[in-house]
């Protein structure tokens, strides 16, 4: 094998090339920003344009433009005003994901999962919200069936339900089919996909045109990642 492994490793560690556009007109995912947006929507389906723009450091107009392109090309679908990757989640859960996309709700849910039985006051301190805000959010999450609110003397305590866990388990076949469909779509788009790593929660695929290749890591576990933060 020709020398050069060190330079190649340095380039890979710096993740050079990850944000490059592919030199091909047409396919949606040839565009680096669109890939990032698609990845973000896999992580947090139904996230609001403003939140996406903030997290990806794009303008809201840029997010809308690329969302529209992904929609036109069938990579995402829309329910009401909620946009999510086509085939990754149950469309009936779009409302639930839109709710979890709000930072406050995700934070309260994460705090409850981390410490079941925690009180409103403790959650408020932990997530830096007022007790009244926590109370309102807890009520909403309870209506979605994600939390149980239990009276304990002068305290109200929060307990997570197993609804998200069940939904997550139930979604695995759908997520697997989503991965398969994506690989077929990339092939149909002439992007010669090469599957590098796959498990129940993520898919790593390399694709491109000629010698120019990019790697896309797609999270496939939205019922967890939607409220556990961005990575």
């Amino acid at each position, binding site marked *: *094998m020709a*020398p*050069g*492994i*060190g*330079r*190649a*490793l*340095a380039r*890979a*560690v*710096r*993740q050079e090339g*990850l944000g490059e556009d592919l030199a091909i007109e047409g396919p949606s995912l040839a565009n680096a920003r669109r890939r990032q947006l698609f990845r973000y929507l896999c992580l947090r389906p139904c996230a609001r344009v403003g939140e996406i723009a903030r997290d990806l450091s794009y303008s809201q107009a840029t997010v809308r433009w690329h969302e529209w392109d992904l929609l036109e090309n069938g990579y995402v679908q829309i329910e009401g005003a909620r946009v999510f990757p086509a085939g990754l989640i149950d469309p009936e859960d779009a409302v639930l994901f839109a709710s979890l996309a709000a930072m406050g709700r995700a934070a309260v849910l994460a705090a409850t999962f981390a410490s079941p039985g925690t009180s409103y006051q403790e959650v408020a301190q932990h997530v830096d919200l007022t007790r009244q805000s926590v109370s309102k959010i807890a009520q909403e999450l309870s209506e979605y069936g994600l939390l149980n609110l239990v009276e304990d003397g002068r305290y109200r305590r929060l307990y997570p339900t197993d609804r998200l866990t069940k939904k997550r388990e139930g979604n695995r076949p759908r997520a697997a089919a989503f991965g398969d469909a994506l690989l077929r779509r990339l092939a149909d788009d002439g992007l010669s996909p*090469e599957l*590098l*790593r796959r498990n129940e929660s993520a898919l*790593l695929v*390399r694709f491109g045109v000629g010698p120019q*290749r990019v*790697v896309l*890591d797609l999270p496939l576990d939205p019922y967890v990642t939607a409220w556990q933060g961005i990575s």
Partner: protein
Amino acid sequence: MRKIRSGIYGLNPLLDGGVNENSTTVVIGRSGAGKTTLATQFIRRGLQEGQEGVFVSLDENKEQIIREAVEMGWSDILEYLDDELLVFIDASGREFSNFIRKELPAFVADWKGSNARIVIDPLTPVLWSTKDLYEQRDLIGYMFKQTRKVGTVLCTLEEHGLADLAGPETVIPMYLADCVVHLRFDSAGTAPSRLLQIVKCRNSRHSPGAHPYQIVRGLGIILEGVDGRRPATAKGPSQLRQMLLTRSMPKNVRDHLEKSLDGLTDEDFRTLKPEQVLELILQEYQGT
């Protein structure tokens, strides 16, 4: 399993000839034990053999490591750097963790079958990039499994607290690595004491003892009192082979045992007595 020379004077005989090619070694030690010196010796020895070297530094900057190597008397690494046979990579633990998750599979697909020596110094920031122990194990296990496809890997690991290898930052890599070397360094007294011990080495014999070592300018780590030229004896295995012939047992069992004794030495038997081993074998197969 092909052996490659470690570059550390006196270590090869303790590892039955050297480091296993395409394996992962973890070197654990406190600050000042000589981990980076050992790693530099390892990579420099490969360069002398025509192998490429990659030094991933997750702590000190590369200029610092190069300067220390030159001060040690190893200025030849400057030429290897000029020729790009040796490449230093600076990265943070988080950057390197992201590389493992997102870029490593593609990198291995492109460079599988390479024969480089790769050092990661230290591995500790990669572990600390996530608090979740399951994720740590997954990350390190995946990295070890993949990187040995492109070369022979040596990672250093900081040892915190007591020098008993029980710290959470050492346990996971120790389980997952092919070979574990512990550099025990005690700087409390007037003269610092240094001991090297091979904790484990898969698919290889290795010395079970703790061996004193010194760090000498121009030479690096040198182990004391190691006689690599002493021929191995096989008195114990030979006696056991003779005894097997005198006792009754199924032919296929005897044939298999005789084959198992091929290449064994008294070092393998250590304190075991051949007659005791024979009795245990007979008990196992009695009545079969």
